[in-house]
């Protein structure tokens, strides 16, 4: 362990420590950035009406004030923020006007995450977020140290998560250290994710927005139309769509590189899984294995057609996505070939074979397929009908549009409906309950049976007629509840009873044998 850390701590008297003083420099630099960004247009604006030196003085004066103010504020914040890692609790004292004291019991700490954006990285700093696994209390269950030096962040992480004395379950039989590293070839799954079209749309929207700020939207559209003066409409549409898609793909590739560069998944001696990744902003997320209740294999449609899958952790205390990372902080492996994904899932769960592969999934009755087809066709018919009615009332053009919609949408709907039915399945594999569903985003969850803390059985009027039920296992981890949709009533209940013995049995009416 780090010797300097120990010395520093002894020197700190009663153990109270401060954040890294360089935070003031960070604040000054951020303010300088803002000042530059805001100052340039202001300078241009001012220079139009008055002499250059006067405009320059105004802008520089404002910038100096902004930077000085921001730094001073941060200096006060730095002076008033102290933290202490005691034997029992981690404490934080903070607040500019109002002193806030918060403390977390060390035994409740479940995660220590480190993030560093480019600026912090250059200065050798990290942001530390210490969290307990509690859903209640919201922000009160996390402490943020923003920022500390990189060494101090590492030391905190190691010290707070080291539970070697407690001993991980079944340690030794499974390998420690590196479980997975980034294979650059995985980037081929980036363009087929749903990010690409979204980014493409955003690029077009952004272009329109920016051109409007400068009052040039009309000109932009005219310019684009000018390029295409002699080309038919169809070509224009094709070219524009291809352009937007290219922008989306480039964006998706860039985003993937920034998110997943240097990705590695490790198991640390204390029984912690650690994910490190990021090109510019580095992120380190740690999941304590004790609170891991299973894994989820996520296959969005595009990724699935290429035979790949992503692995998410199902763990307690990861539900709040207050950071900018959204759901990404529970992703253990980005989209990778399915075999790799399953191998990683097996390593993570300390199983020989991933339960998502080992489980023999029971298919659902044909009535479930009927329901899915009905929904899909219904959803596809709605726009066709609307267009058709409008067409009958207004113009014939809409009737053609309705026809085209029908020709495209109906077969797609039928395919998706059939695929959704094929995806359905549930089963028990060793210590895990496995459930699969979804077509556009197919998920296979393997949930530890001991982690199920209740069942909810739902049945609509239509399901009752078809003899189907939806079973939902509630759990403290992940999304809080995982469902088996449209299982056969008797078989589904028997499955729920088998998965969690004793819970359902007293309330079941069995036919007399």
């Amino acid at each position, binding site marked *: 362990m780090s010797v300097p850390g120990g010395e520093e701590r002894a020197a700190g008297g009663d153990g109270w420590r401060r954040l890294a003083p360089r935070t003031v420099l960070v604040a000054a630099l951020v303010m300088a950035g803002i000042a530059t960004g805001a100052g340039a247009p202001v300078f241009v604006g001012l220079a139009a009406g008055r002499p250059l030196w006067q405009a320059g003085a105004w802008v520089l004066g404002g910038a100096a004030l902004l930077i000085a103010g921001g730094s001073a504020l941060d200096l006060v914040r730095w002076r008033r923020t102290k933290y202490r890692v005691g034997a029992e609790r981690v404490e934080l004292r903070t607040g500019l006007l109002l002193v806030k004291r918060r403390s977390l019991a060390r035994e409740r700490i479940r995660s220590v995450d480190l993030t560093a954006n480019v600026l912090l990285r250059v200065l050798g700093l990290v942001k530390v977020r210490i969290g307990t696994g*509690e859903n209640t209390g919201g922000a009160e269950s996390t402490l943020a140290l923003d920022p500390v030096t990189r060494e101090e962040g590492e030391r905190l992480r190691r010290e707070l998560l080291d539970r070697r004395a407690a001993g991980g379950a079944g340690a030794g039989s499974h390998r420690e250290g590196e479980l997975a590293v980034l294979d650059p070839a995985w980037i081929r799954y980036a363009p087929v994710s749903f990010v690409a079209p979204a980014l493409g749309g955003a690029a077009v929207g952004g272009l329109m927005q920016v051109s409007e700020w400068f009052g040039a939207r009309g000109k932009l559209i005219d310019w684009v139309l000018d390029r295409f003066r002699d080309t038919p409409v169809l070509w224009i549409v094709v070219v524009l769509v291809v352009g937007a898609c290219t922008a989306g793909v480039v964006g998706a590739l860039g985003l993937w590189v920034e998110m997943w560069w240097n990705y590695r998944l490790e198991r640390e001696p204390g029984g912690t899984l650690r994910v490190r990744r990021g090109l510019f902003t580095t992120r380190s997320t740690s999941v304590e294995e004790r609170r891991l209740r299973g894994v989820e294999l996520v296959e969005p449609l595009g990724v699935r057609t290429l035979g790949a899958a992503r692995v998410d952790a199902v763990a*307690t205390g990861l539900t709040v996505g207050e950071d900018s990372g959204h759901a990404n902080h529970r992703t253990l492996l980005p989209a990778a070939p399915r075999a790799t994904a399953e191998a990683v899932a097996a390593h993570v769960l300390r199983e020989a074979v991933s339960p998502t592969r080992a489980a023999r999934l029971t298919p659902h009755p044909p009535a479930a397929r009927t329901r899915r087809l009905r929904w899909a066709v219904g959803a596809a018919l709605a726009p066709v009908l609307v267009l058709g009615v409008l067409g009958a009332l207004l113009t014939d053009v809409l009737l053609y549009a309705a026809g085209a919609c029908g020709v495209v949408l109906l077969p797609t709907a039928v395919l998706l409906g059939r695929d959704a039915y094929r995806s359905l399945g549930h089963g028990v594999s060793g210590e895990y309950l496995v459930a699969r569903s979804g077509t556009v985003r197919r998920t296979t969850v393997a949930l530890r049976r001991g982690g199920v803390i209740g069942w909810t059985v739902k049945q*609509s009027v239509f399901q009752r007629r078809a003899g189907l039920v939806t079973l939902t296992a509630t759990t403290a981890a992940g999304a809080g*509840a995982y469902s088996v949709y449209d299982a*056969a009533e*008797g078989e589904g209940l028997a499955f729920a*009873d088998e998965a969690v013995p004793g*819970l359902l049995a*007293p309330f079941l*009416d069995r036919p007399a044998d």
Partner: protein
Amino acid sequence: MTGTGSGGTARLRPPNNTLDRRVVGWWRTQCLLLTAGPVAVLGVLGAFLAPARPWLLPAAGALAVLGAAASVFLPLWWFRVHRWEVTDDAVYVRTGFFWQEWRIAPMSRIQTVDTVRGPLEQTFGLSTVIVTTASSKGAVKIEGLDHALAAELAERLTVITGSTPGDAT
């Protein structure tokens, strides 16, 4: 062992206890209040807007009739469906009519037991007992219990859960 996927027609049996009979009155009042609002709005509009009167007043009338019918019959149905039971090991509740729902929470995983009385509920002398587990989606609600019974139930649950260790967080 039980249930090895014999594919039989195992079904969930209804829980043992019905709610307090007064709950029908409570549901009826809620239903009536819910329909009274839109009916009143339509009626007032109809009284003031002469040209739209032939549309608005019949709509208000139809809504009132529907609401009244629903208020009379639906609560009777609901009363038959809504049932609850507390054993030594679990809390078991059945709710809903069109979307029926059975919820089971094992005693060992219960975290908190709350008793809630809304203003309308109080006038009927009823309480709601809410049992939460560590899951964000696993709360079990028993609506429409007698005040005294709810208090006694909450106390009993608190005692049982206090003596069972662990809540699987």
